[in-house]
């Protein structure tokens, strides 16, 4: 089921949670709404579900406007962050709930419901748990029950509100891979809300990055990671070194530390514009000797060798800004770095954003 969100605005009191949001999701896509807490992603999801009403704007599901439609008519499955299982019901009863509350005319026979519950529990790999109560399950198992319960009514659209947010890192990783496989199997349109960039980039076909009620960027995981459209997206997706600078006419004088002649050159006449330069830790190169004019000197403060890559923390000599660099193990061995040494830092790739003067 395709989704079309048109100029949706939502306020809670004087606080604008969603500010003129537009979004298009194609049938069968899995889209992640990504952003820090309070960015409005959950509110957008709840509006799609019908649990909240937008103050302005319209929602179309599969080409039909549903802005004023009741929840039950939307055929939408919803998975909550804290599972929201019915704790006085067994796992099987939880999954069967959506079928049991159907009007008698549409309700399948008891036998058919039982079969269906079995099918779904097999899908979420919990056949053995059918007679347990939610309190007897682990967090990951509970969320799988919640997912099976949502799928029981055969929704055309599945909405997941931080489904793995309450789980520990390892289970979370497992479950999101599993969710991705499940999605590929069922071809159901899905929207997943998350504040975990890794999760969004790994699981989704497209990522919608949100910030303070606005959509900052929409694109494939690769697009948003490689070509962030705004400073916020750059900072939110992955670690980054931020250098503040000032552009004066055709030359940029980056204050901290000097990174002259950045990619963009200001037109002559434009004076005194502030700008920010972003460099990812793995895009910074370390050298023992000066090789070109773009380098600056920094003292190695701390080396962290645990993990697949080596993380080096340095302090720029001139500006005393802390800089994070990521090296491969090989490069680290070649350099034979030691804490306290002074080395040359050089950005291989960077992105500059102008900050409009207010």
């Amino acid at each position: 089921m395709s989704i079309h969100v048109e100029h949706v605005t939502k306020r809670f009191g004087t606080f604008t949670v969603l500010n003129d949001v537009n979004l298009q999701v194609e049938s069968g896509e899995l889209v992640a709404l990504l952003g820090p807490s309070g960015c409005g992603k959950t509110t957008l999801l709840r509006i799609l579900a019908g649990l909240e009403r937008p103050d302005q704007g319209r929602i179309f599901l599969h080409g039909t406007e549903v802005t004023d439609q009741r929840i039950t008519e939307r055929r939408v499955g919803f998975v909550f962050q804290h599972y929201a299982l019915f704790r006085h019901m067994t796992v099987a009863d939880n999954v069967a709930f959506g079928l049991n509350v159907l009007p008698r005319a549409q309700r399948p026979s008891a036998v058919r419901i039982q079969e269906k519950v079995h099918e779904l529990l097999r899908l979420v790999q919990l056949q053995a748990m059918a007679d347990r109560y939610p309190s007897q399950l682990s967090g990951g198992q509970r969320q799988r029950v919640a997912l099976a319960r949502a799928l029981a009514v055969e929704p055309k659209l599945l909405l997941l509100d931080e489904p793995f947010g309450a789980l520990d890192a390892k289970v979370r990783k497992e479950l999101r891979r599993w969710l991705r496989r499940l999605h590929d199997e069922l071809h159901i349109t899905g929207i997943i809300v998350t504040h975990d960039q890794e999760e969004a980039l790994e699981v989704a076909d497209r990522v919608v990055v949100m910030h303070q009620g606005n959509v900052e960027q929409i694109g494939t995981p690769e697009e948003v990671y490689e070509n962030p459209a705004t400073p916020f997206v750059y900072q939110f997706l992955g670690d980054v070194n931020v250098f503040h600078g000032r552009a004066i006419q055709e030359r940029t004088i980056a204050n901290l530390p000097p990174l002259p002649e950045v990619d963009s050159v200001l037109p002559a006449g434009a004076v005194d514009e502030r700008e920010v330069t972003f460099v990812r830790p793995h895009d910074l190169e370390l050298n023992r000797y000066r090789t070109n004019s773009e380098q600056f000197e920094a003292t190695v403060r701390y080396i962290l060798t645990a993990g697949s890559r080596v993380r080096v923390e340095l302090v720029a000599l001139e500006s005393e800004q802390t800089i994070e660099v990521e090296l491969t193990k090989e490069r680290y061995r070649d350099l034979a770095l030691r804490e306290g040494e002074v080395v040359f830092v050089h950005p291989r790739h960077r992105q500059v954003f102008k900050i409009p003067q207010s």
Partner: protein
Amino acid sequence: MHLLLKQPSVLPGFGLTLGFALFYFSLIVLIPLSGLFVRTSTLSWEQFWDIVTNPRAMASYQLTFGASLVGALVNGIFGSIIAWVLVRYRFSGRSLVDALVDLPFALPTAVAGITLTAIYAPNGWIGRYLEPLGIKVAFTPLGVLIALTFIGLPFVVRTVQPVLQDLDKEVEEAATMLGANRWQTFRAVIVPELWPALLTGIAMAFARAVGEYGSVIFIAGNMPLKSEITPLLIMTKLEQYDYSGATALGVVMLLVSFVLALAINLLQWWSSTRHMQQ
């Protein structure tokens, strides 16, 4: 040999506090109650049986326990509705209503009895409109029922209210998302969560009503075999210096109350362990 009760603990003073608790409990509860049994034991078994199965006594049990049970059930329904309104809706005067719920707790029961009698008497505010309809409240078992309902209300409201407050809103939303209508959500999701607390509240209201004296005697009219409650019968016997007879009835009340207290505790235990919290 160490006492088995004693387990190593970081908290000091186990022996002291346990000793004090037992002493205090004996002083306040056990000794007075055992006095009841000692006094009753001066009667022979036949005498005891005669007193407690006397038609007047039997009628009083029927009224006391019957009216208490009906009152508790009425409170179960309307108390839940009050708790629901207090928790779920925001309206001006809500905290006032919330405070008023406790009034039957705080009000001297005699005051409650006199007030109820004044209102429901044939010439009272409400009584005068019920009179033409042929409904007599004051000085009938119906009056007893109203008094017992009055004093039991806070128990149901105060046990149901916190449970309603803690009810996870997401669970109701989940039910709605799965296609349940309001009634289905209420019946299948909210009631099961509420049930243990509601049972406890009803049981407590019932227990309180069984022991009620002050508010009932004014409105009941106290006609033997008709509108006489057991506590009043005990009082009557005391006034006639029939101490053994009074304690015999007291023993019956005590045993029933004990069974009830036990039942309440079981209900509470059941409600707290039935499903471990998520």
